[in-house]
């Protein structure tokens, strides 16, 4: 009744149009218009029951229907007011209401097929609820519930969360070593040199110190190829070297001056100091070359490498110093020889790196150079400088190859689904959808990812289904159960109807050959059970 009440005001504006018509025309015309107005509420009164939700649909059919209605009803205009209450009174019983609705619908929609489809889709509340559930259920439930519950429990728990919180910092622990590595680098850059200097004051060998000074001069003079190449690189950017060598310059300048003073002040025979001087700074090694006292073979290689890489030298120096501390009992020469051997190996490795690194940064700004050097040092320390560089790129290459093979949770490797198949499928569906645009590479990548996710999800689901059935083999029934749960298979949609739509004939035949008897058996069982229930 509320609907009819709504429709009355709708008639009223039309009535307002009516008086305008009366102003222009005679009373007869006005009466006819009133008669035309009167049937209108009858038509929507029926329509409202069938097609309630859409207002736009009401208007257009109203217009169409009015004309025949008015034509037929104009002579009865006098009786209409009586008809209205009569019709309103009639639908009180449900049968009468339905009968009226069906009549009205039958009059409006000529095609039987249209009626059925429209009614079935619109009117059954189950379908509406299903659609709602499909739309709402997937988005809301799974995401919110799990994390919130866990958090609330942890927080609400008395002292247990504290215990649990402790392991959480454990995760940062993983990152800690990396930070430590960087920190160590930063510390190593500036402070250790400073620390070395006071140590030199305490324990200094005059010979080594002298050798350090001479070494510098000797390095510049040495004509050997490695030196020349590196010196040429350095010499090309002489200004850059000075600027770049902020680290380098500090080391030599601080060391030699203080060392000279130290030598004058004190003369001590400690292998450790020698080792430190040798390892800690390029000068020491260069000094060795100049003196020629130590192994002649060792001399040329050491200084060149150390000039190029300041930070690395520090790392090496620490390692060597440790070695030297162990060998303190031995003679200084022995320790030096050991250090020299280690240095040679490291330097040989370092030489490749440095050439590669320095050649690039020379073009760029000094800050970039420093940044590069810092990065190099960090990487080297993480890898422990002893490992040569060549194996590293070898490791990277296989990683790229591994990307093609994914590893599932179970630990099995599996290939990615063929993207061409994905593209073919997607194109066919897109055409069926009516979109003209082709599928680009980006969308294809996204689709391939989606397929990966899909197969992962479906695999897990199928595994659970098979396990529930107590089978170790995944069978057709599992997939059918899954699709039934997905609402892809319903009483109207069988597997075969779907397969006929989507699959080529060859696959259809294979489907029909084997699982068909099983399906029939299942269906019969279900039908029997239903019949039993019904009986």
């Amino acid at each position, binding site marked *: 009744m509320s609907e009819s009440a709504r429709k009355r005001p709708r008639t009223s504006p039309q009535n307002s149009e009516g008086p305008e018509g009366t102003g222009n025309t005679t009373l007869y015309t006005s009466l006819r218009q009133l008669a035309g107005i009167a049937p209108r509420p009858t038509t929507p009164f029926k329509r409202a029951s069938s097609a309630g939700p859409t207002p736009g649909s009401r208007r257009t059919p109203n217009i169409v229907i009015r004309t025949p209605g008015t034509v037929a009803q104009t002579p009865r205009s006098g009786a209409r007011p009586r008809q209205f209450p009569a019709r309103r009174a009639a639908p009180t019983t449900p049968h009468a209401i339905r009968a009226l609705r069906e009549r009205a619908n039958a009059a409006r929609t000529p095609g039987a097929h249209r009626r059925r489809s429209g009614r079935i889709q619109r009117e059954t509340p189950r379908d509406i609820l299903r659609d709602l559930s499909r739309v709402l259920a*997937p*988005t809301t439930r*799974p995401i919110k519930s799990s994390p919130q519950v866990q958090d609330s429990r942890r927080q609400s728990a008395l002292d247990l969360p504290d215990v649990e919180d402790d392991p959480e910092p454990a995760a940062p622990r993983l990152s800690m070593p990396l930070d430590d590595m960087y920190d160590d680098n930063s510390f190593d850059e500036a402070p250790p040199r400073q620390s070395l200097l006071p140590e030199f004051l305490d324990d200094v060998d005059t010979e080594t110190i002298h050798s350090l000074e001479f070494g510098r001069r000797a390095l510049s003079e040495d004509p050997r190829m490695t030196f020349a190449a590196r010196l040429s690189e350095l010499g090309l950017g002489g200004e850059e070297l000075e600027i770049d060598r902020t680290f380098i310059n500090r080391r030599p300048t601080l060391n030699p001056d203080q060392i000279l003073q130290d030598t004058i002040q004190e003369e001590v025979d400690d292998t450790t100091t020698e080792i430190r001087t040798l390892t800690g700074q390029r000068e020491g090694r260069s000094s060795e070359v100049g003196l020629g006292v130590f192994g002649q073979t060792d001399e040329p290689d050491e200084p060149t490498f150390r000039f190029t890489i300041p930070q690395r030298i520090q790392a090496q120096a620490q390692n060597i110093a440790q070695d030297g501390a162990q060998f303190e009992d031995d003679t200084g020469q022995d320790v030096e020889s050991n250090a020299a051997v280690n240095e040679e190996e490291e330097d040989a490795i370092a030489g490749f790196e440095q050439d590669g690194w320095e050649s690039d940064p020379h073009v760029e700004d000094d800050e970039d150079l420093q940044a590069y050097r810092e990065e190099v040092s960090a990487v080297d320390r993480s890898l422990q400088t002893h490992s040569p560089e060549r194996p590293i790129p070898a490791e990277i290459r296989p990683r790229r190859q591994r990307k093609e093979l994914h590893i*599932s*949770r*179970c630990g*099995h*490797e*599996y*290939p990615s*689904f*063929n993207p061409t198949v994905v593209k073919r*499928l*997607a194109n*066919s*569906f*897109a055409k*069926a959808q009516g*979109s*003209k*645009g082709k*599928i680009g590479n*980006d*969308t294809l*990548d*996204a*689709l391939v990812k*989606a*397929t990966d*996710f*899909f*197969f*992962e*999800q*479906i*695999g*897990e*689901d*199928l*595994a659970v289904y*098979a396990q529930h059935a107590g089978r170790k*083999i*995944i*069978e057709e029934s*599992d*997939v059918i159960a899954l*699709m039934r*749960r*997905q609402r*892809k298979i319903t009483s109207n949609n069988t597997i075969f109807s*779907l*397969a006929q*739509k*989507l*699959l*080529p004939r060859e*696959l259809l035949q*294979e*489907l029909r050959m*084997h699982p068909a008897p099983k399906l029939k058996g299942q269906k019969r069982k279900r039908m029997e059970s239903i019949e039993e229930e019904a009986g």
Partner: protein
Amino acid sequence: MAQTLYPRGTVKKIVKAHTNRSLSKNVDVLIFLNYALFMQDIIKEASITSKAANERSISALSVRKVREGCLRKFAG
């Protein structure tokens, strides 16, 4: 729609790797059928969203937007 066969071996391998179980003979056909339904759904949704965004063709962004919802629809 799909006029040619799909690589049955790879589908079997993929599902086998995820489930850690062996497959009966023709399960992969049904699985591929389900996958085809999934693709149909995802492309339908993606085309709708891309049209809503006034894009000519289906964009990767629209696919990514739709992907999760479609996966949820096909969860068992």
